[in-house]
């Protein structure tokens, strides 16, 4: 697991104990800490803010109802940390919604072409958050989910395959194709300037020619 998962928040054991005892303020504290990571994950998977908000609600309700059954500790010193348990619930909720709306038809065509993995670094445009978000939004939901679970949350192909009830090969193919398409989406505008920009360039060139004349 990468350390940069937005879920990686160590929860104090005292807070967890209070939540297990059913204290509402402790519940609220946990909710405030994890609402944005859960909502972000749900939005990346579902691609819809309203649906992501519903995933957030359902996830938090499940967490609060089952927190007494959680056997780990807040920081994960003695095993699975609380945030990983919560994230697992969130991922399951989001993927369940994805399956329920039968969005699998939008998958990128699958061949056994994951040998063509994209190991090149992302294009510079990937540093632009808005542009990267727009490019992600154009991917099919399942492909985007695989990309996000693998790169942002650090799941392995086997884990993704289990979560999505598919094979590891499916996860690798989705990752390879998704990465390539994402790169194309990010590099496309840079390689091919828009017609308006081209017209501007031509106009500037014409002005310079007139001045030289």
């Amino acid at each position, binding site marked *: 697991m990468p350390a940069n998962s*937005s879920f990686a*928040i160590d929860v104090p054991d005292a807070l967890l104990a209070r939540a297990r005892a059913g204290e509402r303020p402790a519940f609220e504290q946990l909710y405030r800490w994890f609402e*944005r990571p859960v*909502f972000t994950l749900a939005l990346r998977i579902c691609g819809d803010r309203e649906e992501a908000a519903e995933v957030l609600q359902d996830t938090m309700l499940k967490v*609060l109802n089952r927190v007494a059954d959680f056997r780990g500790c807040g920081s994960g010193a003695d095993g699975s940390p609380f945030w990983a348990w919560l994230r697992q619930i969130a991922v399951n909720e989001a993927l369940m919604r994805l399956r329920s709306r039968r969005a699998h038809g939008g998958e990128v065509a699958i061949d056994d072409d994951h040998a063509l993995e994209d190991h090149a670094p992302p*294009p*510079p445009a*990937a540093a632009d958050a808005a542009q*990267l978000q727009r490019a992600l939004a154009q991917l099919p939901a399942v492909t985007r989910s695989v990309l996000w679970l693998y*790169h942002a949350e650090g799941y392995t192909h086997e884990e993704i395959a289990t979560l999505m009830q598919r094979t590891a090969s499916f996860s690798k193919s989705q990752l390879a194709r998704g990465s390539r398409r994402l790169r194309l989406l990010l590099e496309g505008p840079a390689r091919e300037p828009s017609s308006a920009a081209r017209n501007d360039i031509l106009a500037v060139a014409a002005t310079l020619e007139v001045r030289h004349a």
Partner: protein
Amino acid sequence: MPDNSHSGADNGALAAAPQDWSAAFAALPMETPPGDGWTQITRRLDAPSSRHRSARRERRATWLIGMASAAVLVLAAWSPLSRWLQSAGDDTPAPAVVATTQGLRGPAAPVRAEPAEARVAVATSQTTAAPDTVAQSTRVTTVPSHRPHARSARATPKQLHAASDAAARRLATAASQQPAPGPDRSVATTTTAASDADPLQKLKAQSAQLEALVALARDDRVGNAGLELLSGELDAGIATIDASLSQSDLTTTRQQDLWRQRVDLLQQLAGVEATSRWLAAHGTSNDTALVSVD
């Protein structure tokens, strides 16, 4: 809250190219959910407790309705069963009798007494009753002469409870009596057969059983106007019959007719009281069943 915001989140401008996709994704700002999700969560957290309360209420109501239904079924089955048991061994069907009873506001509706059916097969079970049982039954039939007069003298629930307990004890005593082995059996059989052969004794025993049944079913704490009126009419009819029975110069035939009318009225009264209890337990009334006549 721990500061886990991403370094690139606030940097909207193009920065240096990320090293890999993980770094690029990690640099994306976290999304903020719309509205106040916690308020909705608390609302949904509170909802199950109210649902549980309503479910508990429903379960209690269902249990009450079930108990009331069972009681009504027992009451409904008890009266024909007692008649059937009482008529066992009587091969000669009694003629249908149509009589008119006097109500509070004039003559009540004619009461039809069905002819008793012959139940030869049960005669054997009837003969198992011991002589004490017969004596007890005879003693019970003295109730009409001591019956409180009409509705005004209706017993309190406590008294009714005591009366019903006494009736239940009497019935239990009768049921617990086993036929004595040896020579006593023939004596018991002879006595019981004599009782079965006497229709007047049979009617008196039946009347006593119905009295106990009415005492069990009656509850003055609940009821509605329609059923109370009907119950009062029946009580008045029974009181009129009791007054007639108290006369000394009655022929045996006349006595039988009066006792038969009394049994019929008591059967109707038991049905009315059972219906009243059922409606009260169900939380409804039959007021809507009343029809206004212009």
